[in-house]
């Protein structure tokens, strides 16, 4: 438990992605089995344990501690697991000894409901502070350490010197504590052979169209289709097993039962998960905000199913029946996909239409003016491209519509992390609105990238020289109609939000340009943003 607890402590405080991967990979290399497999499961969210209610933890503590002293402590620390791990005093005669994570998990899994209480007490007595914290996070469910399953897989790839797509392919065929996986990654065994057929196959990704990328390419070699603003999924029905995966290989079947039920074909398809109606049902496609109502849920209720019906807009096909057709050219696969979708449930499946075009200029015009608000650009696919996992440059391109831009006023700044820890590099910006007859700034978003290093120097200097108030790590900067800093903010979309004071939430905002030439009074107004939502950008 000691090494796992130390790993958690470091991960919580490490902001950089690459540093997290290194910490995880080092841990996976050094920790033994089955502990590392359970650690992986805990981080990736695949561990099932008898969970314990916070009240029980509190009760256990108060068996030994004065309630007033506990309250002072909890008020100060703010987190129950952390407080208990710190104030817990093992009986005097008890020698603390480490319990390997694997043993902790197995003991918890074997314990009956009535035994859990004394088991947890017993283990708290044996572990040290960090170990207790890790245990309490495990048994109360949810580590919340800022590491996604995807990142954990990346660390596995790093550990074994493999490609992450190989790990994604295996992932759903394996279970904690992942012994064959670690044997393979440490070079002691061959790649595990899976018995579950409906596994995830790493998806093919596109590269963005960059300056001059299309020059010299013949439009006749490519097919174009709309890039829909939903989430990319893979649906498999092989050997009688049906599964729905996100593009990173996380299984999301539970959240979309209607799709699973409607998948009455054999094969594996690739498409965009959307809500609303299919093209064949002649209903409008729902926005990303609508789709969000259905995301990140383990189960759904009937009302959600009725209000936000989900469907898949097919892009590609990997397996036709039980046959792997990924090596066939896109043109052929597309035909097979069309045949499959024609026969499938019209409420749950439609085909992403191809966009006819003859020149790049023509496609550029179409991209900037798409016929549906739920389109975020076009995809370009070579007609002869096989389906290859990963993001190779050449066969597939994505060409997004231009981002949206507004001019906003810098309001708050916060110091960054790691390399940027001495810079004010996280910015909150706002636009003008009327409130109680006064024209005031209301924050509309936060951005911490988009600027160059030289621009960051300028922003940082502005923040340091124009701080008007401090709130812990945050500084409020001068922002008046005639004094302040205007930035051009680019973003991909806009949603209504009840969590933000302004009522709007931007998607992927970044600072596109510094507008030292503008005064804050020239910045945009909230009404401009509201109008953008009205027109369903």
């Amino acid at each position, binding site marked *: 438990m000691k090494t796992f607890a130390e790993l958690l*402590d470091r991960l*919580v405080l490490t902001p950089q992605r690459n540093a997290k991967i*290194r910490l995880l990979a*080092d841990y996976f290399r050094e920790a033994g089995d089955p502990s590392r497999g359970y650690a992986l499961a805990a981080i990736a969210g695949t561990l099932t344990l008898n969970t314990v209610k916070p009240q029980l933890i509190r009760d256990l503590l108060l068996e030994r*501690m004065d309630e007033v*002293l506990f309250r002072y*402590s909890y008020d100060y620390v*703010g987190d129950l697991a952390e407080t208990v791990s*710190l104030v817990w005093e093992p009986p005097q005669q008890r020698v603390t000894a480490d319990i390997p994570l694997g043993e902790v998990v197995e003991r918890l899994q074997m314990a009956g409901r009535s035994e859990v209480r004394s088991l947890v007490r017993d283990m708290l007595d044996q572990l040290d502070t960090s170990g207790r914290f890790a245990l309490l996070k495990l048994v109360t469910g949810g580590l919340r350490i800022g590491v996604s399953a995807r990142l954990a897989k990346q660390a596995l790839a790093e550990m074994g010197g493999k490609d992450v797509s190989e790990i994604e392919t295996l992932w759903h065929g394996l279970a904690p504590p992942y012994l064959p996986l670690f044997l393979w990654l440490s070079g002691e065994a061959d790649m595990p052979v899976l018995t579950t057929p409906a596994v995830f196959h790493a998806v093919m990704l596109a590269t963005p169209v960059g300056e001059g990328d299309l020059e010299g390419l013949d439009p006749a070699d490519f097919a174009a289709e709309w890039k829909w603003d939903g989430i990319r999924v893979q649906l498999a029905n092989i050997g009688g097993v049906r599964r729905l995966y996100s593009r990173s290989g996380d299984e999301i079947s539970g959240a979309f039962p209607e799709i699973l039920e409607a998948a009455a074909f054999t094969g594996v398809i690739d498409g965009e998960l959307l809500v609303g109606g299919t093209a064949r049902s002649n209903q409008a496609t729902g926005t990303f905000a609508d789709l969000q109502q259905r995301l990140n849920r383990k189960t759904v209720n009937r009302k959600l199913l009725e209000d936000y019906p989900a469907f898949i807009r097919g892009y590609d096909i990997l397996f036709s029946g039980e046959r792997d057709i990924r090596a066939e050219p896109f043109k052929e696969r597309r035909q097979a996909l069309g045949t499959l979708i024609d026969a499938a449930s019209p409420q749950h499946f439609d085909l992403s239409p191809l966009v006819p075009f003859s020149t790049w200029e023509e496609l550029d015009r179409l991209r900037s003016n798409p016929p549906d608000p739920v389109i975020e650009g076009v995809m370009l696919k070579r007609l002869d491209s096989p389906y290859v996992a990963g993001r190779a440059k050449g066969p597939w391109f994505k060409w997004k519509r231009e981002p949206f831009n507004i001019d906003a006023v810098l309001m708050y700044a916060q110091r960054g992390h790691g390399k940027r820890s*001495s810079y004010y590099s996280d910015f909150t910006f706002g636009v003008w609105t009327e409130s109680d007859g006064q024209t005031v700034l209301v924050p509309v978003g936060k951005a911490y990238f988009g600027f160059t290093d030289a621009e960051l120097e300028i922003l940082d200097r502005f923040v340091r020289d124009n701080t008007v108030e401090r709130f812990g790590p945050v500084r409020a900067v001068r922002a008046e109609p005639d004094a302040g800093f205007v930035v051009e903010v680019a973003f991909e979309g806009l949603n209504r939000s009840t969590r933000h004071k302004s009522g709007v939430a931007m998607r992927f905002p970044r600072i596109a340009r510094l507008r030292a030439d503008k005064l804050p009074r020239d910045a945009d107004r909230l009404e401009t943003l509201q109008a953008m939502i009205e027109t369903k950008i």
Partner: protein
Amino acid sequence: MTPDTLLYPAPKGLYCEMGDFYIDPVQPVERALITHGHADHARAGHAHVLATRETLDIMRIRYGDGFCGTSQIAPLGETITVNGMTVRFHPAGHVLGSAQIAVEADGTRIVVSGDYKRRPDRTCRGFEPVPCDVFITEATFGLPVFHHPDDRAEIARLLMSLRQFPERAHIVGAYALGKAQRVIALLRQQGYDEPIHIHGALAKLCEYYQNEGTDLGEIRPATLVGEGRQDFAGAIVIGPPSAFADRWARRFADPLAVFASGWMLIRQRAKQRGVELPLVISDHCDWAELTGTIREIAPAEVWVTHGREEALVRWCELQGIPARPLHLVGYDDEGE
């Protein structure tokens, strides 16, 4: 005589009316007795100062020769008479020169702990328990959550991180007086013999510690000199915590923020400050040591000064020891 006629809190600090002196006053006074050299306890501008030789030296280093009107050295353990009152200084184990001050009249003795710790520390003399009627204790870490771990294990984590991230400069925030030198001494004790780089604000105090016999090994200024530009990748650089937020920190290769403080025990504290590697190294007592010290000294009464008074007072009540908070203002109960 009752203890609270001997010593009581006044606006300028803890006051002894019979001897007309203050202990660690927060504003300039006629006569001050100083427990140790941290800025919130040792201020400049008093007419007369009584303190240990090291504390007087440290005040001179920090404030210059004119830091007070006249000064007098208080040798540890010796009885000194101040305006007819008996006082004695005893080691407190907090930083170099730190002392507890015992004040005595008519058979009643009050010991003012100042800041103190019980852990062994090569850079200063260890705390000496003094029997007394009233023990005035600090309570910086006066909550049951605070259990400072073994400082050797904390330093080992820093050395481990250097091996894991050799391309990053490890910038260690540590207070200029006491903590910085202790961290360096601990690193040397564990066999780290690379040069250690320091921020300019630490230079004079490190030099003073070395002259006083603490071996800190090779210390270099963390400055970039001319053509030989280096980015301190894989090196340890020690600076005052405030320097983290400063432009100063920019010269380093992909800095990894380390902070040595008792507060680092609380994860959110570390996270809020952007610390990636918190080292729980404190120059104060943790909860077990505060309560253990009170048990050991077994005073008739406990008064609690700066920090988390309420929890320590509550603990004393549960033990049947009369206790009360003094509510002194002007001390930095976060400074560590």
